């Protein structure tokens, strides 16, 4: 009896496996983020955790909109799968756009701020944020599709 009570307090209720499909566009990414956060509501995440999830997923999907389906190419599908696991959430994002240059994700170094005012960076923050906040970031090109997986740790 005590044991089962302790377990209830310890772990958040398991969220259902979330699956979201959109056609690439910046507004569709917004919609996917809002649907994802709605679906994760049963986990009772705090503002810090939802902020991290929304930020990493926004960066990953905006990269796809910008680089996998660049302006001039036909927009295509982006699918997002979120699976709860011990200690956090596992994400899989797939698209059928252009492959990652060189077949790997950017390392995501911090931007260099020791530069002249006019040289301050206006971009290049996205992969840094992903690599900084997510764990086990892995990219594969499989059958003309891009597959990005990573984990986000949650307290709980």
């Amino acid at each position, binding site marked *: 009896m005590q044991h089962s009570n302790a377990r209830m307090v310890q772990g958040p209720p398991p969220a259902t496996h979330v699956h979201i499909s959109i056609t690439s566009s*910046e*507004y569709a*990414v*917004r919609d996917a983020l809002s649907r994802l956060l709605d679906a994760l509501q049963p986990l009772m995440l705090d*503002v*810090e955790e*939802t*902020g*991290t999830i*929304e*930020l990493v997923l*926004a*960066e990953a999907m*905006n990269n796809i*909109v*910008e680089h996998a389906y660049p302006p001039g190419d036909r927009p295509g599908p982006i699918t997002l799968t979120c699976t709860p696991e011990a200690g956090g959430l596992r994400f899989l994002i797939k698209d059928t756009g252009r492959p990652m240059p060189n077949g790997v994700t950017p390392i995501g170094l*911090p*931007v260099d*701020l020791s530069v002249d*005012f*006019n040289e*301050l*960076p*206006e*971009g290049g*923050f*996205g992969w*840094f*944020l992903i690599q*900084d*906040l997510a764990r086990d970031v892995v990219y594969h090109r499989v059958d003309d599709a891009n597959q990005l997986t990573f984990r986000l740790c949650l307290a709980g």
Partner: protein
Amino acid sequence: MELRSQQDGTVQIVSVHNARIDAAVAIEFKDAMRQATESGSPTVILDLSEVDFIDSSGLGAIVASMKHMGQDRSLVLAGLTPTVDKVFRLTRMDSVFGVFPTLQTALDAHAA
């Protein structure tokens, strides 16, 4: 993108009345900021207290706005909500801008 501007002495306050500055509106934000800051106030306080979410495109648009104003003027940020604050801290961009917890503290620091 809805920006509202008011003047307080030599300080201009630009308030963002949108919940997000993200990839979908980054260019629109940059254009609106360019127009809003045309008057040339030496100090512009950007009130972000209604903004819940910013991504790297939005961050880039704020940096671009500061660069457009030029080095002789300053763009100061006020009222950062938790996720917005996180983006500025992680990228260390909080070291490039003056960052104040509220509009009032920013005004107090810049009152003539």
